[in-house]
């Protein structure tokens, strides 16, 4: 049986007087690709921050790789790509390679320096995201989509078992989004990396993900993709708060 990687057990979270998350229970197992979808302000990012340990839940419990989050030390097993690809200072004097190598800092450990081998690993990670030609470019010279690929390489370089991404396609050219998702697909299928992807793109991602969780303060649905597809648009609209109409595969075929 596959091992459980993320286990949320009855997690709740409040900001001041408003409840952001209520009784969230979710399990992500080895090799699964989860899409966490929900409207703006549904608590998606808050849930991710709780799973990453950046926020503490008011109630409930988080386990990562079977260990309680407070005692979880193997942080290098998680690769993280944040929503704000422009959270860094774009004038920062660093090359793409230097940025990717920084993803190894924790794994190498204190008091040790980067070796040639680490540089090789960083190049390998850049090859996975097809950015190896840009290794010696300044990070600020790249486009938003290219930078996001570099940040994925930084998340991958430590060979994580789990990749957590918070709306990684925000700010990426629409025409590049599809190739971005097919890259994620390859990471999941070929490298066996479990993925938890937060997105509001209801269509594209549910064609790739093996599992879907619908969040709007509480979890309204979670399960595998085929069950998600069986739900009708009216049900989804009800929890989304406004009408949602998914594009179905057969319609897409028809358009071509």
């Amino acid at each position, binding site marked *: 049986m596959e091992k459980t990687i993320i286990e949320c057990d009855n997690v709740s979270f409040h900001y001041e007087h408003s409840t952001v998350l209520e009784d969230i229970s979710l399990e992500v197992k080895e090799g699964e690709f989860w899409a966490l979808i929900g409207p703006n302000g549904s608590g998606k990012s808050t849930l991710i921050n709780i799973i*990453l*340990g*950046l926020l503490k839940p008011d109630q409930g419990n988080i386990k990562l790789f079977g260990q309680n989050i407070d005692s979880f*030390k193997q*942080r*290098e097993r*998680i690769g*993280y790509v*944040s929503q704000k690809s422009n*959270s*860094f*200072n774009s*004038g*920062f*004097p*660093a*090359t793409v390679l*230097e*940025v990717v*190598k*920084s*993803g*190894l*800092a*924790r794994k*190498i450990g*204190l*008091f*040790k*320096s*980067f070796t040639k081998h680490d540089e090789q690993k960083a190049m390998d990670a850049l090859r996975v995201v097809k950015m190896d030609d840009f290794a*010696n*470019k*300044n990070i600020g010279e790249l486009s938003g989509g290219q930078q996001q690929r570099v940040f994925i390489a*930084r998340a991958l370089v*430590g060979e994580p078992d789990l990749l957590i991404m918070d709306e990684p396609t925000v700010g990426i050219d629409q025409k590049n989004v599809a190739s971005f998702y097919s890259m994620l697909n390859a990471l999941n299928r070929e490298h066996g990396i479990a993925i938890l992807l937060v997105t509001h793109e209801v269509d594209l991602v549910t064609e790739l993900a093996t599992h879907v969780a619908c969040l709007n303060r509480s979890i309204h649905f979670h399960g595998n993709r085929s069950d998600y597809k069986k739900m009708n648009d009216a049900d989804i609209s009800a929890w989304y708060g406004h009408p949602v109409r998914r594009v179905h595969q057969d319609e897409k075929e028809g358009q071509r």
Partner: protein
Amino acid sequence: MISALFTYEFLQNAFLSGLIIGIIAPLLGLFIVVRRLALIADALSHVALAGIAGSLYLSQSVLFFSALNPVYLGMAAAVGGSLLIEKLRGTYKHFEELAIPIILSTGIGFGAIFISMAKGFGADLVGYLFGSVSAVSRQDLWIIIIIAIVVIAFIRSFYKELFALSFDKEYAKVSGINGKVIQAVFMIITALVIGASMRIVGILLVSSLMTIPVAAAIQLAKSFKGAMLYSILIGELSVIVGLFVAYHLDIAPGGTIVITSIIILLFVLGWNKVKGSYHSRKVKGDFA
């Protein structure tokens, strides 16, 4: 100056100290600048002023302080100030930059009180404010050498962590790097470098040697390692030219060193502009 350098011990002290701080001040300054903390060095140097003025004042009445190098109390004050800044940055989470003017004013406030209470250390004080070629003792030189060893060991040991924290604090935190401890040590080291540098460049100009060479370097470098190398080269060049001019014209080295670095910065900015317009013309030409 070259022959005098072999003759006079005070010149050797000044020159060697200058060469060392020309390395460590911009090296640490690079991490300060990329984290947008350039003003912290200013705040800490003014706290050091309070320590130095306090030590000079006490030396007039308390025997213990008359034998004590004022640099020690200056450094201790800067270290204390650095810890207070960290604490205040936590208190004012949404106004982190507020910690800097609070600490800076506290430093100047105490400095002004000690200076007005004491009578007659004007000449000494000018040396501390703007630097001095003649005031660096052998003891000062040894302090500077020890601090340099500590700084370089710290940056070598924590280069990965410092880079990760400077580039992307949130990611560093998620990946399990203990930013709090490293940040606290970093602040203490910054205070020590300020203490080490103030003999040569003076309290008022210490922060310039930490930031101006870096400002020029990041215009030239694509990589972080490159920025580090350029920062140190420009720092060294400024110190050598500045000390040389200061000695021959008999003026405060702080001024000459900093103005040299400003001239280098202007030259770099001008060069980039010329290069930039050449490039854009070339690109336009390619399209035409």
